[in-house]
C-alpha cells in the first residue's frame, strides 16, 4: 500500500485470495490483505473455506485504485463476504476511484461472492468492475448491490461493469451507470425513482441441461421489482430495483431461493 500526497493519486492496493483443494478440504494458499482490505479467515463450513473482507468501509475515496483478486482452484470451495457496506466518498481529488474485482473459478470449483452493498455517497465518483472466468464445470454465485446516496442525500456518480465468461465463452456483459451527469438514469426506463439496484448471478453447469424459468417478484412497485431470467448460457440472473437496500436484499434473497431450487443445485 502506498499513499501519495500529491493531487490526483490515492491509495493503490490489491488484495489476493487463492483457495486450493487439499484432501477433502479447501485451504487458503494465499490470503493477502492490502490497503483498506483486511482479510479474515472465518470458520470453514464443511468443505467450503470462508473469508470476510473487513475494513473496506471508509474506502474508496476519489483517486483510489483498489483491486481484489480471488482464485478458486479446481475442486476448491470458497465463500467471500464483506463485514459492511462499501461507501464511495468524495476524495481529496475530484477524480474517480476504481474498484476492480477479478474472479477465477477452476474445474468443479465453487465460489460464492457475496459482498454487502456499495453505497454511492453524494459527490463521490466510483468506477467498479468485476470480471469472472468460470470453468464449464464450476459454480459461481455472485451478488452486486448498489445504493444511490446515503439517507437524505442524492447519489454520487457510480458506474459498474460485470463481465462473466463460462468455459471461455462470454455469458454476461453488463454496465450500469447512475447519478448526476448520466442521462436518463432515474427515468422510467432505468430506475424510475428507485434508489437501490442489484443483481444476483448463478452460474452452474446444471443450467446447461435444463434452463430456468422466468419468474417475476415484488408485484407492488413500492416494494421494488425483480425478475429471474435464464441467460443465453448456463446461468440465471436476478435483476432487482427497490426503494432502499433492505427491500432490495429481500427481493434478491427471495429470487435467489427460487434460483437455488433448480435441479442439480445444492
Amino acid at each position, binding site marked *: 500500500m502506498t499513499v501519495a500526497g500529491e493531487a490526483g493519486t490515492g491509495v493503490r492496493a490489491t488484495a489476493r485470495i487463492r483457495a486450493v483443494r487439499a484432501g477433502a478440504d479447501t485451504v487458503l494458499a494465499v490470503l493477502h490483505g492490502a490497503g483498506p482490505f483486511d482479510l479474515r479467515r472465518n470458520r470453514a463450513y464443511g468443505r467450503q473455506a470462508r473469508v470476510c473482507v473487513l475494513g473496506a468501509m471508509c474506502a474508496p475515496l476519489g483517486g483510489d485504485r483498489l483491486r481484489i483478486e480471488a482464485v478458486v482452484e479446481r475442486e476448491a470451495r470458497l465463500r467471500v463476504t464483506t463485514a459492511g457496506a462499501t461507501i464511495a466518498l468524495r476524495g481529496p481529488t475530484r477524480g474517480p476511484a476504481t474498484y476492480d474485482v477479478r474472479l477465477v473459478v477452476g474445474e468443479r470449483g465453487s465460489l460464492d461472492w457475496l459482498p454487502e452493498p456499495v453505497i454511492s455517497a453524494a459527490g463521490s465518483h466510483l468506477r467498479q468492475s468485476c470480471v469472472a472466468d468460470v470453468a464449464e464445470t464450476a459454480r459461481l454465485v455472485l451478488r452486486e448491490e448498489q445504493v444511490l446516496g446515503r439517507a437524505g442525500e442524492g447519489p454520487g456518480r457510480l458506474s459498474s461493469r460485470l463481465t462473466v465468461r463460462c468455459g471461455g*465463452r462470454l455469458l454476461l456483459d*453488463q454496465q450500469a451507470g447512475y447519478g448526476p451527469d448520466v*442521462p436518463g438514469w432515474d*427515468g*422510467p426506463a432505468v430506475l424510475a425513482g428507485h434508489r437501490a439496484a442489484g443483481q444476483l448471478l448463478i452460474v452452474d453447469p446444471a443450467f446447461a441441461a435444463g434452463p430456468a424459468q*422466468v419468474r417475476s417478484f415484488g408485484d407492488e412497485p413500492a416494494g421494488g*421489482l425483480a*425478475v429471474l*431470467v435464464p441467460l443465453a448460457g448456463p446461468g440465471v440472473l436476478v435483476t*432487482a430495483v427497490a426503494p432502499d437496500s433492505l427491500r432490495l436484499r429481500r427481493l434478491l434473497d427471495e429470487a435467489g431461493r427460487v434460483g437455488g431450487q433448480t435441479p442439480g443445485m445444492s
Partner: protein
Amino acid sequence: MSRAALLMLADGRFPAGGHAHSGGAEAAVAAGRVRDAAGLREFCRGRLHTSGLVAAGLAAAAAAGADPLVLEEAADARTPAPALRRVARVLGRQLLRAVRVTWPSAELDALAVARPGGAHQCVVLGVAGRSAGLSPLDVAHVAAYESVSGPAAATVRLLGLDPFEAAGVLAGLAAEVDQVAGRAAGAARRVRAEGVAVLPAVSAPLLDIAAERHAVRRVRLFAS
C-alpha cells in the same frame, strides 16, 4: 455512401416489422411510469443511453466488418432478458428478409444460413448497412434513432398523445441521438484491435424487468 439508402433504412415504412413493437413503452405506460410527453421524453432518454447505445455499438461494429457471429454472442451477453433476445431475433429475421431483397449480398446470405432462427436486429442492421454502402456511423444513427422513434410512435397510440408533441420529444433528443451514434461508432472502430469488450454494454434494469412482465400479459397492443 448513399444518403437515400440511409433514409430508407431508417424509414418506419421500410417493411421490417418494427411497428408491432413499442420498445418497452407499453409496459411503462401500463405501470403508470409514462403518462405524458415529459414522461415519454425521460423514457426515451433512458432507453437511448442504454439499450440504444448498445444496439448502435453492435450495429456499427457489424457495419465495420466485425464477425457477425462474435457480435451475436456479445449481443446475447448484453441482453439478459430472454423476452428481449426473442424480440431482437424476430425483428432481425424480418429485417434480414427485407434487406436480402433490397440490398442483396453474400454477407447477408451467409448470416441467414448461420442463423436460421434469426440474428439480433442490430447485427442484421449493421450487415445490411454494409451491403447498402453505409458507414458504421450511419448505421449507428439508424439504431440510436430507432431506439427512441419506436417508443414515441407507440406512445401516440397508447396514451392518445398528440403526434406533434411526440415528434417534439424526438426533435428535442436529436443532439443526444447524434452523440450516442458518435460514441457507438467510436467504440466500433476499436473492435478490430481490442475485441468486442470495447462495445458499450449499458443496461436498464426496468426495461429488462418490465419486458418479462409484458411478455406474459394477455391483453396488449404491442408485442414488446
